[in-house]
């Protein structure tokens, strides 16, 4: 596949568009610092930072849309070298449709890209022009001399907004089985669902509900990840489980595969019967459009968060916790039922930012110096109906991310939970006694190590040590 995809985290898209769509006496440019990864066989550029030039750096030149002094790029190049990131020059032709990458743009790219490549040879570099709906330009991958020119863009905001690499009209779905669902997600939305790939990690009481619903809504491919085999004690909560599965000790992934097939809406199911972060599972996760985690353990969530942040993939986390209240008065609830549905959009708050993960909590979960000493949470209370509440909301979140039925904006305000916009929605807490899911919201924390070191960084960039 020769197409390149750009992934732009929440917040950075806004900065980039504000920089290049600015109106003035000349065109404006912005420099994107990028890492890259091969995700599902496709070269993917992951935007990490956007840097603009000060007005004083531009020169008056009527022959070109924008001209700037070479020295103005020194801080950009230095930062790219220090962080080992590629440089992509952006400008805009704010029209609709595929913008033309002019001869002037090409000549400028021919001059700049080899220079960028010389400074950071291990990363891609490029020059891209944005319209209001598409992107075109040239991207030079490391070690390649022939640039790639088909560029798709994936903007993260309230939903995933995809700009296609060509201006061919989007095919609209005409699958009658989804007629009533399409009233919510729209016909193009139904096509997006059909083309989507969602990974579900953990196929127990929560994950099995989610797989079932993803198949009902017609998600193209559901990647089911879990190494476990079913047991008799799963019978009360694992959706799709039969007595014979227990007798044959079938893998949960196989049970989910059969469940998807029997629903018969055309969804495919890929089975990955290993634990995250085994290599096979990590490679499968990297291909997903959205990851849904239904896991008991914080360490497993830490791994999903890491993959999601490095490769810019939205991650929806669910969990339910039922704990007895030992000193409850007669007539009062005997249990506290809590839970969460956390929607993590790359560039927004992460599990560390919202306090769900902390070093103290992770240490408590271990029983020794490393994960080999880990002890599970078997024996905790589980009820199918309570799992179903958070699972259904997680599928709503996936629907929103993929189809944007609740709004598709790429700006931070589009995901704001409160009126001043400082709190991002996406952290819902369950009160199982009152039967409510309440939006708590959370904010990205400045100085968060996960957001500063892992977001959009892909794999480590190795260099010769001597």
């Amino acid at each position, binding site marked *: 596949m020769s197409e390149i995809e750009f992934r732009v985290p929440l917040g950075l898209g806004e900065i980039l568009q504000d920089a290049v769509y600015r109106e003035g006496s000349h065109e404006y440019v912005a420099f994107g610092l990028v890492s890259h990864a091969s995700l599902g066989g496709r070269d993917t550029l992951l935007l990490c930072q956007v840097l603009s030039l000060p007005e004083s750096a531009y020169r008056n030149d009527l022959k070109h849309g924008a001209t700037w002094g070479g020295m103005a790029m020194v801080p950009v190049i230095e930062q790219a070298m220090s962080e080992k990131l590629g440089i992509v020059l952006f400008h805009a032709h704010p029209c609709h449709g595929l913008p033309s990458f002019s001869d002037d743009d090409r000549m400028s790219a021919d001059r700049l890209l080899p220079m960028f490549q010389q400074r950071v040879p291990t990363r891609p570099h490029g020059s891209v022009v944005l319209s209001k709906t598409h992107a075109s330009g040239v991207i030079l991958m490391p070690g390649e001399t022939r640039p790639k020119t088909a560029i798709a863009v994936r903007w993260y905001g309230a939903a995933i907004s995809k700009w296609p690499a060509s201006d061919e009209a989007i095919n609209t779905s005409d699958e009658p089985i989804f007629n009533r669902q399409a009233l919510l997600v729209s016909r193009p939305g139904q096509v997006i669902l059909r083309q989507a790939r969602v990974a579900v990690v953990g196929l127990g009481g929560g994950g099995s509900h989610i797989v079932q619903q993803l198949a009902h809504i017609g998600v193209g491919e559901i990647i089911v990840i879990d190494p476990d085999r079913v047991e008799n004690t799963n019978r009360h909560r694992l959706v799709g489980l039969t007595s014979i599965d227990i007798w044959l000790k079938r893998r949960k992934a196989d049970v989910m595969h059969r469940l998807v097939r029997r629903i018969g809406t055309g969804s495919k199911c890929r089975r990955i019967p290993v634990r995250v972060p085994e290599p096979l599972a*990590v490679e499968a996760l990297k291909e997903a459009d959205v990851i849904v985690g239904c896991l008991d353990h914080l360490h497993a969530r830490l791994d999903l968060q890491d993959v999601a942040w490095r490769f810019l993939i939205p991650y929806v986390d669910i969990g339910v916790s039922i704990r007895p209240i030992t000193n409850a008065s007669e007539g009062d609830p005997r249990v506290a039922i809590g839970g969460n549905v956390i929607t993590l959009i790359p560039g927004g708050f992460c599990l560390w930012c919202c306090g769900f993960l902390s070093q103290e909590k992770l240490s408590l979960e271990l029983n020794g110096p490393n994960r080999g000493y880990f002890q599970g949470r078997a024996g905790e209370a589980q009820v199918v109906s309570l799992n179903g509440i958070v699972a259904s909301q997680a599928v709503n979140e996936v629907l929103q991310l993929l189809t944007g039925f609740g709004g598709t904006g790429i700006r931070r305000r589009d995901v704001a939970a409160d009126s001043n916009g400082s709190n991002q929605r996406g952290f819902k807490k369950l009160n199982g006694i009152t039967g409510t899911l309440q939006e708590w919201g959370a904010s990205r924390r400045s100085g968060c190590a996960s957001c500063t070191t892992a977001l959009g960084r892909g794999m480590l960039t190795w260099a010769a040590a001597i």
Partner: protein
Amino acid sequence: MRQEAIEQAIQDLGAIYGDEVQSAREGSQTFVRLKAIELYSTCRPPVTPMLLVFDHSQPKPFVYVRPGQLLANGRVPKTSSTVLIGGESWMQFSFNIPWTEEDNIMRFVAAARQRFAQDE
């Protein structure tokens, strides 16, 4: 570990393993990957990449090998598990390696290799 000690360790590894040594940095951590380390001949596989992670806040590096590495007797090392480091899967294992930053890093690597000659 002090930055000078980390740099010295990388230099020492480079002097022995040459092109087989690669390094990367992320945040406060320095990663060193040794492309192929020979283990005991009956280990499966007998050669593994090894990852050393140096951190200023830790007195010695963390060490990892390729997931699925078996001991010389064909067993899975006790209290081992797979972890994600820099977006890649690695196997961590339990082994107390007596080492300080004044020691040569090769002593640390040799002790890590020795772990796979043990019975469990």
